């Protein structure tokens, strides 16, 4: 194959299919390839991480990693259509699940867009080889939606920056390697104009990673405390005080997650989507699949699976072709939360009383209660649905912006709590 000709889809499909069947494990019936964050012990989780790294390395060696990443950074330099073929061929097989978010999106595309050549050559191939798992140091304890109100500070000291503050809601930071970090470098200007993005290794002196216990017992979400963390200026991404330019694209790639050309998400054969399958698993475990009212709920879950898939496709095609602005990614994000939330409710309904009180024998039904307690995660993580609704109404439909009292004020003077108001 010459450097000029791109592999055609048909031969790519044949190559993918053959390699996958020979090298990857087929999922058991009912196994989705996903797992809920609460379901694994610490040892099992670490083993899972190690296995994901291995799978990613095998993909890299086979020439199937970074389908849409330029060849010079270790990718394949192919198209989104090729990525979709890979997704289709991967249906029913294991894949490097933990690498997809946030490593492959949004972190990697942010590096690709804003990183220096040196930064890209250092990290992109390492990511594609399964050597670096990335996290987003974005949200802070002081507020999640108001991302540009970050309080973590970075102060310049010669060729180094000194970072202090705290970041939170990093899924799996305890087993990850690197992070993108949004920090405040200028307090004398309005909030969007005083931010800078850095990259840093997570496990280093000055960073304490604390695992947060969620209401369902999961400890995957973490909080990091940064104390005098030293970051060389060569690990700065983008210009000083221009972090919001990076941040805007960062959040775009986050909202695009499921449709990102950099993310692998195996399609479930002809029956795409896991919503209905998960409801059936619960209904069967609870011995309620024969109930006509449950059948209707299974039908609703399936309908939502299909509609969600069709919408995600429409939005990503719309953005790619220029019929929709980048901001339209919020439409898919909002709808995905609505679908996930409704299917969680349906699953809980399908479990019947086993959702409240269960035994080991209840199988899939046993988990539905705790899953339902965590339902809102789909509407909070990755930017709340309220923020998505603001984006859709203001940026897509052009409605008036919400009043902000911090817009033209030096960030230092912005009230940040009840007590700071005078």
């Amino acid at each position, binding site marked *: 194959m010459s450097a000029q000709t791109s592999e055609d889809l048909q031969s790519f499909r044949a190559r993918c299919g053959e390699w996958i069947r020979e090298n990857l494990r087929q999922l058991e019936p009912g196994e989705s390839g996903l797992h809920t964050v609460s379901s694994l012990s610490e040892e099992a989780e670490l083993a899972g991480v190690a296995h994901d790294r291995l799978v990613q390395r095998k993909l890299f060696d086979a020439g199937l990693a970074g389908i849409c990443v330029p060849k010079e950074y270790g990718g394949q330099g192919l198209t989104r259509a090729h990525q979709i073929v890979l997704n289709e061929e991967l249906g029913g097989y294991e894949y490097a699940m933990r690498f997809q978010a946030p490593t492959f999106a949004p972190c990697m595309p942010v590096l690709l867009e804003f990183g220096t050549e040196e930064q890209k050559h250092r990290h992109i191939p390492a990511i594609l080889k399964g050597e670096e798992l990335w996290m987003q140091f974005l949200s802070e304890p002081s507020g999640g939606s108001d991302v540009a109100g970050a309080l973590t500070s970075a102060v310049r000291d010669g060729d180094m920056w000194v970072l202090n503050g705290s970041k939170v809601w990093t899924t799996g930071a305890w087993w990850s390697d690197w992070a993108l970090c949004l920090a405040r470098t200028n307090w004398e200007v309005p909030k969007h104009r005083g931010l800078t993005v850095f990259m840093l290794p997570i496990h280093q002196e000055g960073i304490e990673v604390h695992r947060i216990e969620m209401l369902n017992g999961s400890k995957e979400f973490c909080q990091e405390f940064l104390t005098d963390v030293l970051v060389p200026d060569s690990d700065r991404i983008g210009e000083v005080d221009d972090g919001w330019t990076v941040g805007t694209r960062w959040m775009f790639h986050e909202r695009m997650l499921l449709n990102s050309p950099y993310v692998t998400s195996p399609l479930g054969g002809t029956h795409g989507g896991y919503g209905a399958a998960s409801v*059936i698993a619960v209904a069967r475990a609870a011995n309620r699949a024969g109930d006509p009212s*449950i059948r209707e709920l*299974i*039908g*609703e879950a399936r*309908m939502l699976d299909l509609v969600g898939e069709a*919408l995600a496709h429409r939005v990503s095609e719309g953005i790619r072709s220029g019929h929709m602005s980048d901001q339209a990614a919020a439409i898919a994000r909002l709808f995905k939360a609505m679908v996930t939330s409704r299917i969680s409710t349906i699953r809980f309904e399908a479990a019947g009383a086993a959702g409240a009180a269960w035994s080991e024998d209840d199988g899939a039904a046993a988990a539905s209660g705790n899953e339902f307690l965590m339902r809102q995660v789909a509407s909070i993580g990755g930017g709340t649905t309220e923020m998505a609704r603001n984006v859709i*109404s203001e940026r897509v439909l052009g*409605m008036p912006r919400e009043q902000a009292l911090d817009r033209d004020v030096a960030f230092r003077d912005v009230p940040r709590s009840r007590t700071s108001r005078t």
Partner: protein
Amino acid sequence: MRLELSTDQEFFRQTTARFLDDHAPVDEIRRLRHDRAGFDDRYWRRGAELGWTSLLVRVEDGGGTISGQGVVDLGLVAHEFGRRAAPGPLVATNVVAFALSSRGSAAHASVLADLLAGEQIGTWCYSEPPPNDRLGDVTLEMRPKGDELVIDGVKRPVEFAGCARQLLVTGRTGTGLTQALVPADAPGVSIAPLQSVDLTRRFSAVAFEDVRVPIEAAVGRVGDAETDIERQVQLAFVMLNAESVGAMQSAFEMTVEWAFDRYSFGRPLASYQEIKHRFADMKAWLEAGHAISDAAISGVQDGSPEAGELARAAKAFIGDYGTELVQDCVQIHGGIGVTFDHDLHLYLRRVVANRVLYGTPSDLRQQIGRGVLDHEDAA
């Protein structure tokens, strides 16, 4: 509607859109409310000249498509109909034309030619009154006797039966299903008009009492029409869906405009976060409606194994969320949204009627659920 159309398709869509703008403005729709037929003959004939009735018909029968994909092309017409809540027997005529072209015999050729030319309209007698009103229930009897078919039973609601000269009737023959083309004036056929929420669509209950037609009237094989009927159901669904999405689009745009124009407490409605967030939800439902409608159209166009499921999922989703969307548009308009003078109800009527014709969202969800369970059992 699809985001990208070919040049030919876009030209075709615009031609229909302009024709409807000229000949089916809202005043005309209001006027037609008291019209017996609900549409004007000349309007329909001119629509037929534009291609409204030929898209599902084989070229050798005088039909033809714009893009080689007749279902996709027809979806564009249906969308433009929905955008304006336009009058005319679009769904019924196209289903019948499709059936006669794909399964009909020489005995049906002249009727088909009339349908194509807009000289006659078609109607499909499929749904039945309760308790046999779930999608797929067929109890009307169609017995072969000698060289005749004997028909007994009731169909309801039947669209435009009042002005159709021929009825495509779906009935039961033993354990199988049969379809036949029956003259509306055959002895034993009685047609009783019904009231409707839609201003320009007319519905009837049609009773068949010992109606006899020659066996040649059968469309397709006697007792073996299930596959044909499923295909017709899918076609009806995708047209109704495309139409409803068009109506959703119009209602939504009209309400966005209103939210910018209408001031309360010194500020536009569009500046209230409560209202903005509801528009965001509506926008998500609207784009989702477009997406699933188009996915179903593609599935039915290709005759894919998922076509039936996609068409049902689309109709269930658009039925539920389309009516919610337009009702929310009414809410945001306030009192004026429930007046006859305002145009919003034209679109509300269209999505409300389409929601329940040929199967309610609940009915369809149950069918989808059964299909998924059967599929899992088979795997």
